[in-house]
């Protein structure tokens, strides 16, 4: 097995994208929250390894939903 397994291609791993500074601000304003009131994701999380995340980035996760076709979720990157 020389080929590395890419977990992002797994059907159970939803798409993670990094939001830009402005996009992140828009999301935070929409929900009227600060960065510590939003769910967290670890810097070392395998699903965001390729996004070169930094502490404090906001990650957007879109997953398929049987009732809503697509749902979005946001997480802020924390150390660990």
């Amino acid at each position, binding site marked *: 097995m020389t080929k590395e397994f890419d977990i992002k291609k797994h059907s159970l791993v939803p798409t993670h994208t990094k939001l830009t500074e402005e996009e992140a601000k828009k999301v935070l304003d929409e929900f009227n929250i600060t960065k*510590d*009131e939003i769910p967290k994701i670890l810097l070392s999380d395998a699903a965001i390894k390729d996004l070169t995340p930094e502490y404090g980035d906001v990650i957007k996760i879109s997953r398929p*939903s049987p*009732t*809503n076709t697509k749902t*979005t979720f946001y997480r802020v990157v*924390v150390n660990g």
Partner: protein
Amino acid sequence: MTENITKKVKSIQFSMLSPNSVKRMSVAKVVTPELYDREGYPVDGGLMDIRMGVIDPGLRCKTCGQRLKECPGHFGYMDLARPILHIKYLDTILRYLRSTCMDCGRILVEGEKVKKHLDNVQKAEQEKRYKVKKNLINAFANSIKLIKKCPHCQAKKKKITIEKPSTILEDGKRLTPIQIKARLEKINDEDIITLGNDPKNSRPEWTVLDILAVPPVTIRPSITLQNGERSEDDLTHKLSDIVRINQRLFENINAGAPEIIIEDLWDLLQYHVTTFFDNSVAQVPVARHRSGQPLKTLHERIKSKEGRFRHNLAGKRVNFSARTVISADPKIKFNEVGVPKIIAMELTIPEKVTEWNIDWLKSLVKKGPKNYPGANYVIRPDGRKKSITEETQEILIEELQPGYIVERHIVNGDISIFNRQPSLHRMSIMCHKILILPGRSFRLNPAVCTPYGADFDGDEMNLHIPQTEEARAEAEILMSVENHIISPKNGLNIIGSIEDAISGLYLLTKKMKFSKGDATELLFNASVIDEKMKNFKKEVTGKEVFSVLLPNDFSFVGNSKNGDDVVIKKGQLIEGVIDKALVGEDNGQLIREIYSKYDEKIGIEFLARIFKLGIETLLRSGFTIGISDSDVPEKINKKNQDLIKKAKQDANNVIKQYELGKLESLPGNSIEETLEIRITEILNKVRNDVSKQVSDSVNEDNPTIIMASSGAKGNLLNVAMMSSCVGQQAIRGKRVQGNYSGRALSLFKKNDPSPEAHGFIEKGYKQGLKPYEYFFGAMTGRDALMDVALRTPKSGYLYRRLSNALQDIRIEYDSTVRDAEKSIIQFKYGEDGIDISRSDGGKINVKKIIKQIKGK
């Protein structure tokens, strides 16, 4: 009643009590173990000193001048002859001793590492990850243990050990609390921060007590027994022990007694102070009363189920409530509750006197508390409460005028809240209207048993009477039964027709015919009068009778239990039979359709009417079961016997193959497992085959079959079990095994894999079981019983933890789900924002909605 809030709590700071703050908050110094003088008056400087609060009616507190119940109590203090280790802070003491240098008092780590550690801690603090912070500090303190030398003064570290419960040793030599205190005092503020404490609020040396705070008298009141003797609180007992030993220690020190005696007394004082804080410390002998019963000291007051939190704060007792056994009454409405008269005369509602109701209320006061309906109390405008008795009655009626309040008995139609524990979902507590009935039990309609999870084998339920207009309005609007027909868990109707009502509707709509008079009478008896009844012809079918209850503009297509179409056009049932799939609980398509098309009122009214109609139908036609219901024609019986015989033969063939070693294993199973699987398969199949034979052969009008096919109770398998074959008994999903001996009963051969040796019951209940078959039946019965008895408390605890963890989470107005800190849990409720109770099976059926709009 309402008080203006003048201050708001912004934050809470937890800290240790410093000796200074103990002195500052104290009002008295306790010096003597005596409690009262000869007249029974509290001694000054004793533990019941009236400067610390009063518990005698008539006395006034010397500190605040208030009486009993007004004075909140005030702390006192006592000087300890020698310092004592606080048992609850032993870990903290050890951590500081192990992490700091015995010589210079500095932390055993250089500045660089400390700085890095503090950075990490600060980051965790900012991110509100307090658990991470705690772990960081713990890991840091643990890493210090390995360091052998002080980096500041190069002194060698000595090994600190603890000899339980509270002796601290350094390299095997005992450290006295005096030495420990001296060491802790040397530690500087920065090092305290590094180890996770705030030196302003919690200095480590405060964990070694020179001075003990004495709790106010009001939190340890004494009880006066009938014979006039006083019985003191456990805390007072413990405190007087401490005072006594403390005094002796003082005396001995002053008299220059030998060191051994002083040390002994010191240890004794340590013991008493320890048990004062916590009387259940490991390896400390429990302090007891003279009777041998353990003292309940500070720790025990707070801890566990009987402690302050779970007993007094999380669970309180209430007034205006009643509890009694429940029983069924299918003739009362769903949203009514039958209340016994004795209870009605005890529960009251405060009714404001106005010029419009004064005559009525006067008549109630006249009847007094002993006649129903009467009243128990009159409240004057100044707030004085007067109980109505024979003497006061006349005067009270005289003076009653607008502005007064009369606490009258509850009467029919009053609002109440009805509840059955365990309250697992919101339908466990609903609003019912009072209906006074004779007898001594609460009565409820059997259809509302499901949401409460109630039955009538001795269940008891609670009734509460809301006391204000606001509470009554809230209960009626938010908690009414009609608003809880649809469950928020799956969007299905939790209330529906049950048992006899289903049987009745099934029979009615299947093929019943009435004369015009009979049909009208039937509907009348189900309390229905409707325009539609005018259209009755000479002969009326059951379907037409049922249609009277349907709204005129109602159209519907659905499926009955066996898959047949049920068609309703413009309020007329045209095709199909009404059964569980249409009106039953959790399945009632018809009920949900009416509920969503009209409103709750019409929905529950319809449900109540069909329920009554079903029961009334059954009452008229008569409905009973008997042994002959499970009679099977001889021909079919023979066929069944052959089926069973053949199955047994098949099983034996498989066994033979196995014995010959010819059995091929199924993928992923051993040969033994394959044998079990094959045999189980054959034996389970035969019961289904038999059951099919039985259901094909029996008469449709057979009441047992009617109940099974309408979904009222039971199923066809139960019929087959009675008439032909009980079938394979299973324990934990397997055939009955003889676990260690190789056989289930001693009459079988060891390791005999045959069907009858492993719980296959060949005959039906009617033919009778063989002794060993009966035994196998008992085995599965006991297994099921044990399973329930063991699982219920386990799942109860699981649920308790879950509900405690989730209790503050709620949906905000922007449809986000947030916790008590307003942090987001979900960005949209359920990630799709759908209210399950208003959806169609958890989804929104757009096509159906379009069709509905278009249809109009």
